């Protein structure tokens, strides 16, 4: 009897271990209806402003301001619980397609093995100042329309991604081949003007604490103005020009049963090259239920602009004080 109990206990532990492991194939049952379309709204906007400073000092400007929004349906036609594939039709005014995609949480998390996969950063050596600079950056959070609602695994994994020693980019020092220039998540956060993760400002541990098993989304915003620099060859040297505005933000949220509720991405960017100035603003978002009205918005995204406004105020106040 004791042996039997031991065996069943071991079996149970094994099953639990498999269920809890990120690689576990065992699937949670999904409750998405077949043949009932989910309506989404998609919105995108792009604003580019380029100013050219001419020889006589006058300024010539180009502005492109584009926006587009449409509604579309994702209509599930089949769900395979064994392979964890969902077949769905995508239908918008401009296109129609049939898709078959994996909805398994394990499969999804494989797409984000480390912080570097959703925070692509590129560092380069600035020979003029003999230092390593952040010369490229973006946020690319992966999402799916349908995801196995295994939020425990999801949150454990995202918590593990927020590891300050996680390497975002590295290269061999141009003067010392035995030295590797390493840029970590910790470096990025430390040198940023401000960051907001999971709605929490400038506090990584508090952000991690938000990744509880009830949580079903992720958000990351960072202000790297002045830190992010773009290279510019002036004829003799490669200069690294600081951005005066570089705000990146992305977030997503799922419903409790694993249907994408919201996904958004935005950046707000400004740089003054010696003879050309650029402003670029990009936004795009998917929202379940159609195109949201102007008044409704997702709170996690508002945090950063407000934070920025406060920082700006502080900076102005500080400068004013210095003047006095």
């Amino acid at each position, binding site marked *: 009897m004791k042996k039997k109990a031991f065996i069943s206990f071991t079996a149970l532990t094994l099953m639990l271990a498999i269920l809890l492991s990120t690689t576990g194939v065992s699937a949670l049952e999904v409750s998405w209806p077949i043949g009932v379309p989910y309506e989404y709204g998609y919105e995108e906007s792009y604003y580019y402003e*380029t100013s*050219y400073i*001419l020889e*006589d000092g*006058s300024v*010539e*400007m*180009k*502005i*492109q*301001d*584009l*926006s*587009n*929004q*449409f*509604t*579309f*349906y994702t209509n599930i036609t089949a769900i395979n619980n064994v392979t964890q594939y969902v077949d769905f039709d995508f*239908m*918008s*005014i*401009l296109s129609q397609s049939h898709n078959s995609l994996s909805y398994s949480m394990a499969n999804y998390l494989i797409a984000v093995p480390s912080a570097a996969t959703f925070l692509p950063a590129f560092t380069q050596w600035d020979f003029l100042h003999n230092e390593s600079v952040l010369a490229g950056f973006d946020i690319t959070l992966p999402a799916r329309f349908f995801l196995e609602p295994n939020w425990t695994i999801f949150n454990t994994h995202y918590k593990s991604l927020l590891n300050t020693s996680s390497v975002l980019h590295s290269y061999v020092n141009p003067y010392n081949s035995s030295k590797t220039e390493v840029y970590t998540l910790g470096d990025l956060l430390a040198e940023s003007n401000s960051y907001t993760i999971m709605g929490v400002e400038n506090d990584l541990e508090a952000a991690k604490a938000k990744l509880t098993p009830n949580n079903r989304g992720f958000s990351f915003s960072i202000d790297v103005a002045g830190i992010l620099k773009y290279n510019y060859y002036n004829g003799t040297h490669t200069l690294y020009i600081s951005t005066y505005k570089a705000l990146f933000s992305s977030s997503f949220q799922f419903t409790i049963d694993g249907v994408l509720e919201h996904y958004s991405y935005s950046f707000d960017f400004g740089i003054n090259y010696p*003879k*050309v100035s650029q402003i670029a603003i990009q936004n795009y978002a998917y929202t379940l239920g159609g*195109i949201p009205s102007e008044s409704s918005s997702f709170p996690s995204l508002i945090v950063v602009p407000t934070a920025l406004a406060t920082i700006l105020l502080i900076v102005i106040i500080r400068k004013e004080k210095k003047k006095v």
Partner: protein
Amino acid sequence: MNQLKRIWLFLQTIGIIAIFLQSPFATASSSYNWELIYPYFFTQSVEEKTHILDTSNNLIQDSSMNTINELVVNLTSIDLNSGKITYSLTTSGITLPYIADFLMNDYLAENMLTNLFSFFYTWDYDQNTTVLSSFALNFDAWYFLEPNWPAFNDHLKMILNASEVIYQVSDPYEPIIHNITFGDFLASLPAYSFNGKSTLDGFKTQLKSTTRQWTFSFDLSNVLYDSYYNLTLGRFVFFPITKYETSYSLEYSKDGIMQENAYSLKMAFTSPDGKQITIDRIDKYIFGSKESLSAGLAILFVFPALLVSALPMLLKKSKGVNRSK
């Protein structure tokens, strides 16, 4: 007799001088105050809004596009003999040299009725008649133009000739050629207005020797047709564009600098597959930096405003007809 002869000679001289002063050549040599080297800013802009509604599944799409491009022109030479100017044009920070004509005669030679308007009529087998399947208005807008406004306005009066054949369509059944005149085209429209006047003659009498602004508005609703190829029938099937209001406006300064060259379109139709499509578009080319863009907007809406005022008049008229019955 001698004194009379002298007076006669004096009068002749005055007459010759007067004729000479009025000729385009005289204008060319006397009134160019365009400045060399001084940078002239021009701004080109496009605003477009598209709305599509698919009523069969309630899907929508809304797009908007606004682009603004500044262009900087520096005149480098004016040659009165050859009637050519040279200038450099800077856009996106890149400067390139250009040579252009500026004489009014050269300009007018390029702007005849069928250059100004492009028409395309096709045989519609469903209605067994010709339909207008394409229309465009293309004024040349030179940055700098000899300021001979009497010649410009006389030319307009001359080319806007209602009896001029603008298109010919061969009848597919009979050995007939259907001649479509400019007058036929105008008569087929629900409404049109040229410089605010709703008749061609009204427009012509309004054109003065000093007129430097011209606006042409056309309501081509249900007159202009679009088409799609029907595989079963093996031919194109035409359907009317239910709303098509277009306006074109050109304006020069007194001394011949292009001030505005604008085009607007308000269009709405239902596609054969049931999509309701609305397109609003404004293209502008204006003198000045981008800050000058909002200034000249009003001119484009001459036509819709006219329509609104015309409606109560029409209502009154129809009431009158009923009473007389």
